């Protein structure tokens, strides 16, 4: 656990740097508010309703694909570390695993999961 103390230190340091500078900005900066200034920027037009609405389902698809493939990639890391000890068995086993992944990828491309029209 001691190994990860520097990570905590770096996070604290980053937070302090950002906090101090944004605090200085809020302290030193001008403060003039008006109804027009505080509304969302839409190139000068009056804003047409809230932006918190629906957006394209393609982005959800990208997120789902990411979850599947990222978990698989993370599974590959421990295998890669001990690849030399595993020998031929590990190599063939992972070849099958990668094959399953590639089949999934080919299916997704063929199904048109990436077309944005």
């Amino acid at each position, binding site marked *: 656990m001691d190994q990860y103390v520097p990570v905590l230190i770096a996070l604290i340091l980053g937070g302090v740097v950002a906090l101090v500078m944004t605090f200085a900005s809020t302290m030193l900066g001008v403060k003039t508010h008006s109804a027009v200034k505080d509304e969302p920027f839409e190139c000068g037009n009056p804003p047409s309703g809230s932006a918190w609405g629906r957006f394209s389902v393609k982005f959800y698809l990208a997120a789902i694909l990411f979850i599947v493939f990222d978990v698989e990639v993370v599974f590959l890391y421990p295998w890669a*570390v001990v690849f030399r000890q595993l020998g031929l068995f590990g190599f063939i086993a992972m070849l099958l695993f990668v094959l399953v992944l590639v089949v999934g990828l080919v299916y997704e491309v063929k199904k048109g999961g990436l077309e944005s029209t």
Partner: protein
Amino acid sequence: MQSFIDGLIASGVFGGLPAEAIYPAMMFLFASIVVFGFVLPLVTITIWLERRVWSRIQSRVGPNRVGPQGVLQGLADGVKNILKEDVVPDAADRPLFVFAPYLLVWGFLATFVVIPFSSALVIADLNVGILYIVAIVALSAVGVLMAGWASNNKWSLLGGIRSAAQVVSYEIPAGLALLPVVLLTGTLSTQGIIQAQGWAPWDWFLFHSPFTFIAAFAFYISALAETNRTPFDIPEAESELVAGFATEYSGFRFALFFLAEWGSLYVTGAIMAVLFLGGWQIPTGWTNNTVVLNIAQLTVFFLKAYFWVFLAMWIRATLPRIRVDQMMSLCWKYLVPLGFVNLVGTAVWMVIWPEGNTFVPYLMVVGTLALLVIFFRRVLYHLRRAKPELYFNPAI
């Protein structure tokens, strides 16, 4: 770093202080030096240098008024940003809006923990180093999505979700491109990976086999996309989305986004240097002085990392932005399959030549040099043909 502190304790500098107090204190000191003495100046200098490089490429002058040749431009911009108003729109989700830039700053500053500047200078040589970098860089995706959503602005929302889709997609080719090196070394520690390479180009993993060579460039492209750099800057595309996820930000919160962007650019270069270019490796035996040796290693590492930063500047000044669908298909249809090919190819290579092929690295070094020579000969040819009035003229 651990051994360095052990040496200091043994020499009795701290007197009778307990070791549990010394380690965190020294770590904190060193991390502060890295952040304030290296990262923040580096980012401001990089932003200035990038603007100068673009100007040079586009035959104009660029910032040259603040300090000698405009070096202090970044500092001036920072002061100006602090003095500007920090506007939070009425309609925004205030806590998320205020918090989002911090996540980005964490996402790039925390990666410096495992970057080895020299054989002794690394804040912490974690045994999961590479995995840690891959994990912590993903924080910036959360930050950008949070900023885009919290602004309650259509431009910001589009920028935020575009960025989230892009960063998460390109994390997969980036992760796959790092795997060949992990295969070859059998370790995730950054120092371990550097120690497995040598100072000479033919000992670098870049030239180890054709697969690692391709993996290096696949990683570089993915990393450009992950840090939202041109040609993948669609999340903040000025000509379509105003400023993307940063539209509603002002004051220093706005500056933090760019601090993170240019900071992670150096992180990209450093990861390239660690994994593929032999990191801080230099010829040994010419000096016994540890300090001199470490300074030489530091310089070599910095130059190797900065080469990739310079390349990113060059790309940004040269290439146009690609479309969202092109971005997605480049990732899923080209880089991800390429990543699998590299992975399996490297594994096969290791089964055939467990100690690495003795001939191929030399061949690849010679081939790369030949390509570079041809490239620069073409550049010179075109420079000679160019009209004199198009030359850069510093007197303008």
